[in-house]
């Protein structure tokens, strides 16, 4: 009853409009979104602002690894090779975000297509399609990535593919569940009664109605991807010199933990804050897009 009262109180407003409004009211999510925005800005501008290059060694320092100081211009300090950490951290953030976004995009595209089709078609097709997912889930993932890396060398694109290749599995499962439920809804039946072909129904009725869930999961996948990429880098399988990522920086910093703690704490701090913000944003999106409210 209250839902109908609220609904009829709106004179205009699409579902997206309502969602945007709810999101704006969620302080944690808004703060998180702002923070992420700042971080992206810093990542883009940081290397430009700094007088130091990514792999430039500052021979004036002695020892080469020096703690953060405003005096000598190395605001975040330098690593054990004397390279400016400020530049490296922001450049690393760029790479981490890039990998995360692209890999998530790959997961979303494949996962939604797979899951929506399986869920809508149901029956045996669904069975087989989801069995594929189950089998892939069961594979030793690290093993796979290592083999791929050995065979194809360590390129950035390979990392996107490797991560995306696994990321889509969960998305597919989630979307398939939603699609199965949607299939029973009367507006889908009405579309079938109109004689619309399955691909039209999936594209026009199923996918738009799962987008809410997909967006939320995507936002929550991004942190997972960043962590995974960090893990790969930690193992030495991730991005290679001269590029760097937050994960690599953390890996390198961990080695110097006792003598030069800032080398670990700065990139780890940025990483942790980024992940926290993404999680808050994801939660906020989920609340905003929850179809039960209005």
């Amino acid at each position, binding site marked *: 009853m209250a839902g109908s*009262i*609220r609904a009829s109180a709106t004179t205009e407003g699409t579902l997206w409009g309502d969602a945007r*409004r709810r999101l704006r009211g969620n302080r944690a999510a808004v703060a998180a979104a702002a923070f992420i925005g700042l971080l992206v800005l810093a990542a883009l501008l940081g290397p430009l602002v700094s007088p130091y290059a990514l792999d430039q060694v500052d021979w004036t320092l002695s020892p080469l690894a020096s703690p953060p100081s405003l005096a000598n211009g190395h605001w975040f300090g330098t690593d054990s090779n004397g390279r400016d950490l400020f530049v490296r951290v922001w450049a690393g953030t760029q790479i981490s975000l890039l990998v995360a976004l692209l890999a998530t995009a790959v997961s979303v595209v494949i996962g939604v297509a797979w899951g929506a089709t399986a869920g809508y078609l149901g029956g045996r097709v669904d069975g087989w399609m989801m069995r594929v997912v189950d089998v892939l889930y069961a594979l030793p993932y690290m093993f796979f990535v290592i083999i791929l890396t050995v065979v194809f060398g360590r390129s950035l694109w390979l990392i996107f593919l490797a991560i995306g290749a696994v990321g889509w599995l969960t998305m597919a499962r989630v979307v398939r569940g939603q699609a199965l439920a949607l299939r029973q809804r009367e507006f889908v039946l009405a579309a079938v009664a109109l004689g619309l072909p399955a691909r039209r129904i999936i594209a026009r009725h199923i996918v738009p109605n799962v987008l809410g869930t997909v967006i939320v999961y995507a936002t929550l996948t991004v942190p997972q991807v960043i962590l995974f990429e960090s893990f790969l880098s930690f193992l030495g399988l991730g991005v290679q010199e001269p590029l760097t990522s937050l994960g690599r920086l953390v890996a390198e910093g961990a080695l110097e933990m006792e003598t030069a703690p800032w080398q670990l704490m700065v990139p780890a701090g940025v990483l942790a804050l980024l992940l926290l913000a993404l999680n808050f944003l994801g939660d906020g999106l989920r609340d905003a897009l929850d179809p039960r409210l209005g």
Partner: protein
Amino acid sequence: MRSTRGSAEVGPDALFEVRDLSVRFATPRGDVTAVRGVSLEIGRGECLAVVGESGSGKSQLFLACLGLLAAGGAAEGSATFDGRQLLGPDDAKRRSLLGTRVAMVFQDPMNALTPHLAIGRQLAEVALDRGLMDAEAARARSLDVLQAVRLPDAGSRLRQYPHELSGGQRQRVAIAMALMTRPELLIADEPTTALDVTVQAQVIEVLAEARDRGLAVALVTHDMGVVAGIADRVAVMYAGRIVEVAPARDLFAAPAHPYTAALLASVPRLDASPAERLAGIEGQPPSPGVEPEGCAFAPRCPAVLEACRRHRPLLERFDDRSVACHAHRRSQGHGS
């Protein structure tokens, strides 16, 4: 227990009384008023039907009294049960009343029934949780209430789960649950709306029998046919206000408010000629967010007068009933 069934007014010892109750919801688009200054009473052992369509506020009225409003909702005014105030911050006191002396049944019985517990267990828990009786007595009482709601094979039902029963049977179990603590007032919110006609009749019978045994019933519904089967008095709501209150027989025989008349005329009857058009009501109820000027029903009213659009008619007593309508006033010789 003095019964005031069917009489014009309930009198000073009404079991349940609402005075000037308003319910407002704060929404992102502004305040929405669902109930506007409603007053009514229910006497012991009588059935008051509160009738209205979607958006009339009839459900929100009782949800407010029981403290069940959705987030963002606030109630003003007074609602008392046996003299005790129901509104206000004292949660503990209200909770002690609810579920013991006042019980509620909803449209979807699955709101009351837990899918993973056997029915007998759920029934017994109602009494045990409130420390009203021991396990042995609770079990006996469970059997009693299942029989009271005419569920055959009561003994074996105790071991069954909700999903093993049909919709009508589940609703009867929900009523049985409500009866476990021997309440004095049962609020039934659209109890038959989701059910087939044959089962509706049975559920209404069960409620009527409980009423005959002394239970006061507040029946919230939009179905006039169901009302006719049980109500002693009827209150009709439109756009958050009460527009008419009358004894059931009088209301059906001669509805005073044009909305009541239109509502009755909309119901398809088996004894009417099938070739006649059904008399619907043109237009739509006002949006709950908007306070209408004058009478809320004026835009749709066949008996509308000039005064109706400017002054909101107040609820007034005319013999046995209360009506809020300028046209009715005039017809009763009270001038405009």
